[in-house]
């Protein structure tokens, strides 16, 4: 444990040193418990994310990755530290963000298209232009023709795709994804991973994907941020220099396996994962 604490993580300069979109510095989160024993959910989180970068955050349950995401999404207050987007301090929800949740969280009384349009309505964007954009996004994720269906007429995978379209419709620069495929079966999950890669390469968004699947993290990301629990902190940031576009078959190559093994070692050495 003392080794983890002394291991100071220097904010890594992202590959090709593009402009920094998001800077997280000295971020801490302490949950005040009623019994007086406070829980440190996040300890000294430092991370720079470049414009257009795909970052995966991987870690076991309780490592604070969802807490980190909630702070970035603006629904949870941080205890200390700074979060800045393009140099502007981020306090609370931002229009620059699109969030994809663990569950699709669709509103059952709205059609697929009306669900995608939720951010547009909330932020009062131009409706006509956004409707075209929403239909375009739905077509991109293979839901063309489903615009007037209701959520409970769709499968879980299709619902999550609607959630992704909703996160993109107001053209945010930063997409936060909180274990979006955790509830899906393995086959659907692989398909969704392929689609997410395509969406990312077509839209050039910056994406932060929180997951507890190591292969998923490696497969999609430019960099994988490794977190461990008690207290939640970053123990490693690994650049994934596998060529793009990546194919599913790449998961069987030795290079891919080496990345996965390197990440898994962090968890087995921490005793949080039987690897």
């Amino acid at each position: 444990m003392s080794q983890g604490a002394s291991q100071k993580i220097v904010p890594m300069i992202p590959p090709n040193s593009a402009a920094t979109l998001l800077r997280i510095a000295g971020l801490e989160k302490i949950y005040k418990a009623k019994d007086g024993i406070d829980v440190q959910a996040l300890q000294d989180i430092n991370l720079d994310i470049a414009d257009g970068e795909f970052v995966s955050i991987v870690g076991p349950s309780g490592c604070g990755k969802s807490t980190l995401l909630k702070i970035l999404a603006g629904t949870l207050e941080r205890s200390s530290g700074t979060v800045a987007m393009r140099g502007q301090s981020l306090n609370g929800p931002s229009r620059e963000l699109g969030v994809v949740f663990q569950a699709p969280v669709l509103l059952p009384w709205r059609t697929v298209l009306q669900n995608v349009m939720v951010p547009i309505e909330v932020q009062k964007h131009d409706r006509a232009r956004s409707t075209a954009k929403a239909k375009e996004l739905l077509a991109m994720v293979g839901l063309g023709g489903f615009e007037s269906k209701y959520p409970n007429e769709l499968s879980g995978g299709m619902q999550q795709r609607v959630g992704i379209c909703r996160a993109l419709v107001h053209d945010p620069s930063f997409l936060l994804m909180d274990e979006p495929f955790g509830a899906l079966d393995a086959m659907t999950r692989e398909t969704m991973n392929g689609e997410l890669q395509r969406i990312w390469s077509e839209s050039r968004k910056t994406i932060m994907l929180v997951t507890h699947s190591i292969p998923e993290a490696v497969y999609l990301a430019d960099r994988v941020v490794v977190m461990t629990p008690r207290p939640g902190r970053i123990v490693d940031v690994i650049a994934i220099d596998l060529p793009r576009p990546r194919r599913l078959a790449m998961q069987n190559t030795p290079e891919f396996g080496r990345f996965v093994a390197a990440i898994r070692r962090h968890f087995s050495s921490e005793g949080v994962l039987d690897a």
Partner: protein
Amino acid sequence: MSGLSDKTLGKRLIDSPLLSILVFCLFIAGWEGAVRFFEVPKIVLPTPSAIAWSFWHGFDDDNLQWHLAVTMYEIVAGFVAGAASGLLLGFVIALSPLLERIFYPYVVAFQTIPKVAVAPIVVIWFGYGVASKVVITATIAFFPVLANTIVGLRSAPHDQIEMLVTYTASRAQVFRMVRLPQALPYIFVGLDVAIVLSVIGAIVGEFVGAKAGLGYLILQKNFNFDMAGTFAILILLSVVGVGLHWLIGLAQRRIVFWLDMSGNRVMGA
């Protein structure tokens, strides 16, 4: 093989309304037969045929349609007034914990008072006409709508609210886009209870003192020992109640359509 077809026939019989109609006919026939066979006096229990006769002639002899119209007006006006004030106060209380602490104990205290006991006072205040019945009906219809509105407006799942908040929604937007639609199923439960209670409210009001209406007519029939006439009006009242309940259900299925789609259909829906 024949066992299989028998089973499907039996199942079809259970699913169709035919069975309940059949049971009803048997019940009526048994009633008629029993009263005639045991020679039950008609001031104790009239035969179904005497009730039907009385019902048929009620429109000519007693101006039944006029009394029905009066009672219907009391039910509907009282229901609308009670439901509207229940909705309004429900919104206010659900949105303001302070106002809830101030007002809700009194609302509950008022609710625990039997409305039958209040009815004579209301008749003295508002007179023997229609107004006092509308007021009594409204006080009865008010509470179920109020209680269900409050619970409904607080029933919105946390993740839906959080989703809207991350997209920078204001409090008013969260209310309009999530809290209100989530409250609708609860509000309809309240309206359904309220409409059935409204029928009781109007009759209670007329019993205390009235110049017209089905409750007034029931009292008159009772004074004349016209049991068949009383039964005829009771049947008319239950038809009114079922009809109004059905109307609320119809509106609910149209407005809260997404609940019907999720597969948890209620029997007979």
